[in-house]
């Protein structure tokens, strides 16, 4: 039972990061109907730049503030100068371009920062706290949960309460009508990409200290897991991304925790995906599949 409690709580904390990264994929999907395969590489690049500054001044905390800004800038530039040029209809081409961008970014990161793993130390202890003899969370994972909660709250307020949020939603839901109403839809799409890659960079700063650290491909595993989570949730739904993220975090933790066989984890993940998609082919929280102009 103790083990179950620990695996559950820890799985939630891990899932929170997957949920955040899945959310970043959903944001782009909603705005552009594209899965941004460069999201992992861009988030590492942002974390690299942010930590280059943070390791000199301000530490990890400054890094956590800088990474989303750098990520947002990179994502917006990527959209503006590659994806937008393809036009709105060429989704498959855009996905291939995104894979290309990922390869270029990873190659550049390798040239600039090298190919060895470089540690990204956590700002607080990663030792698990005992509560009444039951292992629970490390202070760092508590921090992660808090940071994710703040981010989600901020995004929810942005989308529901601000004029920019309304423009972003309208542009994604009905681009043509939005244009007729004076919304600069192209600008909103670029902004949505920036917002999404900023969120991905935030997730990278949170998750990298728990793994082997910075490396050009350090977020590839997170990308695949979070992508699975996003598809589970329906790709179109922020709530779905969150539920998918937590579900994936829990499943991974239970499988590795109870079997001591880390190679089983990806298999379990695919099993979960298969099971959900067999029952609900569009994912758990998919909205209406027909979108109007």
């Amino acid at each position, binding site marked *: 039972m103790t083990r179950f409690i620990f695996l559950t709580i820890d799985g939630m904390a891990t899932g929170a990061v997957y949920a955040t990264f899945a959310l970043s994929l959903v944001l782009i999907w909603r705005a552009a109907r594209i899965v941004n395969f460069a999201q992992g590489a861009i988030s590492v690049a942002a974390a690299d730049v942010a930590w280059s500054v943070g390791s000199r001044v301000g530490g990890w905390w400054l890094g956590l503030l800088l990474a989303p800004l750098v990520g947002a800038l990179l994502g917006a530039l990527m959209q503006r100068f590659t994806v937008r040029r393809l036009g709105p209809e060429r989704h498959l081409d855009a996905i291939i371009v995104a894979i290309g961008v990922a390869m270029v970014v990873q190659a550049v990161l390798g040239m600039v920062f090298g190919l060895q793993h470089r540690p990204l130390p956590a700002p607080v202890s990663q030792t698990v706290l005992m509560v009444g003899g039951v292992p629970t969370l490390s202070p760092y994972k508590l921090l992660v949960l808090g940071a994710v909660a703040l981010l989600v709250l901020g995004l929810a307020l942005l989308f529901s309460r601000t*004029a920019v949020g*309304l423009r972003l939603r309208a542009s994604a839901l009905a681009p043509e009508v939005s244009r007729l109403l*004076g919304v600069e839809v192209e600008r909103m799409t670029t902004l949505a990409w920036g917002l999404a890659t900023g969120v991905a960079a935030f997730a990278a700063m949170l998750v990298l200290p728990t793994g082997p650290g910075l490396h050009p491909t350090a977020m590839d595993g997170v990308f695949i897991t979070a992508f699975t989570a996003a598809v589970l949730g329906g790709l179109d739904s922020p709530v779905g991304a969150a539920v998918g993220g937590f579900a994936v975090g829990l499943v991974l933790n239970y499988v590795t925790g109870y079997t001591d066989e880390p190679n089983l984890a990806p298999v379990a993940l695919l099993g979960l995906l298969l099971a959900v998609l067999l029952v609900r082919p569009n994912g758990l929280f998919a*909205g209406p599949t027909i979108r109007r102009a």
Partner: protein
Amino acid sequence: MAALLSVRGVCAGYRGVPVLRDVSFDVAPGSVVAVLGPNGAGKTTLLRTLSGLLPLTAGTVRFDGQDLAAVPVARRVRLGLAHVPEGRGVVEELTVAENLRLGGLWRRDRADVARAIAQVYELFEPLARRRGQPAHQLSGGERQMLALGRALVARPRLLMLDEPSLGLAPKVVAQLMAVLAALRSSTGLAILLVEQNVRSALSIADTAVVMALGEVMAVRPADQVRADDTLRRAWWGSGQA
């Protein structure tokens, strides 16, 4: 009086397939112009071209003297040109209130946007009761009210409406036409009305532009078209109008 909207020799179409051929007509300030014609006459294409959703392949469109060629879609509403697209064009997932706010987001004068929204709620009482509901819960008539109200929040000088009567009960259509006529006389709003419902359109129009197969067949005063039965039959067959 100088025309508010001046369309000269306009050609346009979809992906190289020409639809509009050499379309010319004017809309005077404060006037109501009805664009009439059967299905496939190019009426919707005309409005989409005027609002910039489709590019011109020839001709010019001037609004208040300004050539619109270089004005992107999202900028045209700032000049005073509002387009309520076919199928009502409400954003289904957004609430009534959010749809209305969306219509005025570009405007600096926030106080006047609030006033305009309040006026829309006054004009269309059902919207006020449903302001917190998502637009997909509205009836067809309420959606048309919302689409129209949202366009009014921009305080346009020319309102372009695409088939506003489509799918509405005759009584609702009559109310809608009454609202349009009242708006025109109270605010001096010019209206370019695309309709298949010839009788309702002619009931408020000053001028009728009759289109067929992408061309303008005739531009006539509306009462002349109303009065002339043979003219009507020749254009739309005896079944319609």
